[in-house]
């Protein structure tokens, strides 16, 4: 009885988190695609040096970050992966979304400030420790995108 109740609750939570999680994920990917298309012409590049011929009038730090955490369903799948090994597929879309969202936020900020491009773009990840399990648990992951935003001298 008890085992069945427990199983029932687990299955219910798995179903709900799966349905809600995938709906949110779908909407987020749609939003990412739209915003990426809008900003496509804005150069965000990883060059450390300015391309030849660029004349910089002003520069600044551009930065965008996201913090993501797992839903129960994804965590469950990843937990089973931890036993069998292999690609942790359930985390992949989550981290993909986090990277793209962080890059978009960085770009959107630079556009709003009137910059023309961002060079030397970098991505960094850090784990946010959870207070559970003496900080060994993971509360989430921060994805940080940053680079040098530049305003170019307009050619007359």
């Amino acid at each position, binding site marked *: *009885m*008890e*085992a069945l109740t*427990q*199983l029932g609750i*687990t299955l219910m939570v798995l179903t709900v988190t*799966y349905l809600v999680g*995938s709906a949110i994920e779908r909407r987020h990917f749609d939003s990412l695609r739209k915003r*990426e*298309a809008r900003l*496509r*012409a*804005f*150069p965000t*590049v990883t060059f450390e040096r300015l*391309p*030849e011929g660029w004349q910089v009038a002003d520069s600044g730090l551009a930065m965008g970050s996201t913090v993501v955490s797992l839903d129960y*369903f994804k*965590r*469950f*799948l*990843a*937990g*089973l*992966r*931890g*036993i*069998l090994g292999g*690609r942790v*597929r*359930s985390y*992949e*879309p989550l*981290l*993909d979304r986090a*990277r*793209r969202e962080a890059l978009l936020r960085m770009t959107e900020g630079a556009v709003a400030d009137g910059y023309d491009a961002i060079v030397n773009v970098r991505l960094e990840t850090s784990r946010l420790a959870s207070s559970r399990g003496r900080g060994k648990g993971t509360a989430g992951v921060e994805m940080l995108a940053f680079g040098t935003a530049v305003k170019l001298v307009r050619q007359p």
Partner: protein
Amino acid sequence: MRFEPRAPREGINVSATHPLREAALLVAGVSAIFAALILVVGWSVEWAVRWIPPELEARTFGDWAHHLSSPEHEAERLAVEALARRLAMHWPGAPYEFQVTVSDEPEVNAMALPGGTILVTKGLLRESQSENELAFVVGHELGHFRNRDQLRRLGRGILYELTASALFGFNATAPEVTGFLGQMADRGFDREQERAADRFGLELVQAEYGHVAGAGRFFERLVSRTSGLGDLAAYVSTHPASSDRLEDLRDYAAERGWRREGVLQPWTRSD
């Protein structure tokens, strides 16, 4: 250098596998591993129990269950213990000195604990309407001792937990899976053990009273009341499928020509 804006390619960083397919594959794989583990643990325990003589078991676990008994039930405890020992007289060469512990719980339940201790709940004593009825429940637990089920259950529990935590202790999801599968496996092992213990309990009742009246009464009430459950839920969950077992008991008694009618001894209930 030229810069030409392009759309990023999708599908490189994210696998195309559908999450539900992934879930199905993973659950199947992990279940297979645990099923194998449960089998190996079951076999090892079957093998190990044969090498542990009951005397060693009694010496090891001797008095450990005594503190579970509440002092205010001492009179009842002695009465049930006397009943258990009377029944055990019909089991020649019983290697245990049986002791009874009465626990305060209102649920109807009884349990065979390693070392020869029978735990009965206050709820069971309250529910019993005749001594015969109670004798069958106690006899059933004696049946567990004869088959060493208490030791098997303990051994399986320890070994399973140990192996599972040694193998998967680092994993946060594993306990959920191991716990559930472990309980299910116990159920599977239990079904046969319960049947064997039932038959032995019935034999003792027949030997003691010359008939088996009242023995099945307990189950009959269980079966008719499982829809209402209440306090009986505990007994049903650790002693599954009461209606099947009732039928099996009837057949068993009929085969041997045991009478199902007879004078019931009163059981003085206290509240």
